[in-house]
């Protein structure tokens, strides 16, 4: 995977930075510059809290290239407290031992690796809320 492609997305991947629509107020993640709710421009950056709850989840046994070492792993749709759904792996959990509605929070973890000499790619995952 090309370095530039991942470098370009660092704010979103490491910091969960999205956008807020100045017209309808909806929070947007990932950023897309055009509000999917009202179709107006939305370019104001917005820092998400990283807190949310599990909307759905699954455990992947048949992993794609670059993810084999992590398998089996749990992937979820997380409903962020600001509104958007985000797709993310869950970490610090026993596979499958989570439930819909469970509070989770964002952490930064290794997402994938491209072979022995390739780039290690980091980004957001979610874990059960500590408090």
């Amino acid at each position, binding site marked *: 995977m090309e370095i530039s492609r991942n470098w370009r997305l660092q704010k979103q991947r490491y910091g969960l930075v999205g956008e807020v629509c100045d017209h309808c107020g909806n929070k947007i993640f990932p950023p897309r510059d055009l509000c*999917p709710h009202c179709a107006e421009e939305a370019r104001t950056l917005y820092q998400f809290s990283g807190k949310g709850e599990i*909307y*759905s989840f699954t455990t992947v046994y048949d992993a794609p290239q670059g993810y084999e070492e992590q398998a089996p792993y749990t992937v979820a749709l997380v409903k962020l407290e600001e509104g958007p759904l985000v797709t993310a792996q869950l970490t610090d959990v026993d596979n499958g031992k989570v439930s819909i509605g469970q509070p989770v929070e964002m952490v930064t973890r290794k*997402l994938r690796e491209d072979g022995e000499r390739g780039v290690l790619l980091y980004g957001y995952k979610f874990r059960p809320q500590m408090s």
Partner: protein
Amino acid sequence: MQTWFACVRSKGQTHRFAPTKGTMRDVYILGLGQTEVGEHWETSLRHLALVAIEAALKDGGAGANGHSPRPEAIFVSNMLAGQLSGQEHLGALIADFCGLRGIEAATVEAAGASGGMAFRQAYLAVASGLMDTALAIGVEKVTDKVGPGVTSAASSATDSDWEAMQGVTPTASAALLMRRYMHEHHLDVPHFAGFSINAHTNATTNPHAMYHNTITAEAFAKAPMVADPVNMFDTAPDADGAAAMVLVGADALPRLGLTPSHLLIRVAGSAVATDALAVHDRPDPLFFRAAQLSASKALAQAGINVNEVNVFELHDAFTVFTALSLEALGLAERGLGWRLAADGGISLKGRAPISTFGGLKARGNPGGATGMYQIVETALQLRGQAGANQIENATWGLAQCLGSAGATAVTHILQRSRSTDFRNRALRA
């Protein structure tokens, strides 16, 4: 921009679509052909395409000069050849390899909806009057690669930056939807068994199907998980295969000297719709909005409602997809799509027969060719050539294929027309 989003966002409202505009002419399926779906270790991508194209041209019959009419263009549907076979540029490759060097040809890609999309391009070309005949061919060759590389390739149909990057696969996408569907509607895995049981039962008498075994509810309940709650008997197998069809304009038949021996099937409706590619970008992930939009548009063009359709081929890559498709089509209320499988409503004798030749689940899922197989099978039903799988007196058929988890939906409505009807039309034209 406002208008476009307004269309996308108006959830739950009734959509009105204008019927076919302008001077589009009627289009008929003249010939069709398909290979067996399965693991064709001995056959290359181009050879699979050749087998299907030869069969379709032969099935279309010879004209006055003793030869099949030469199509004016080829629309190839394929999803993964670039990644699995290192081969793009299939238009020129297949046109040349099939003895049609020189004609217009191009590839059409819309993930799992590629087949329906290539058929639509051929339909548009003929309906517009620019061409008298066009050929649509779907071909997929998944066994050129094995292992995690195949999973990676298939995952490229999801949102690469925001889904696949988290290790999401197409199966995982389906599993996320199925888990939420089960949660909201208080269901368990065994509630979905009826879809796979029906598909396997119908495949036993389809010579082109990958599987010819039946499965039981007990086996479904105990099948090993692929991405829970999606198990081995819930998901359709990726496979090799090719299917092709020759389309012809209503007024072109006498000019081409053709007198078909079989019934001609009219393409009565054709429509495409899209949704957000990433499942998390949809305001209501458990509603297949593109499926609903494309179906209602195609039905409106055909001038019928969904209850008049006698036979359906839906995108049963996963059981939850079928449930959501039935709900999108209005054949079941939300949360009740699974019940049509449980009570036999989808069987050959049910009120909404689906997967009548085994569907993706048991006929097999040859990626970019799948949508083409669905239309071939629907046409065979309407011609009365479905053998043991025949739906009696089938007049209207609906074939719908989906790209990834419903981000693209292509719907076609087919109508049986007696050859005398056709000749009358041709004479009037």
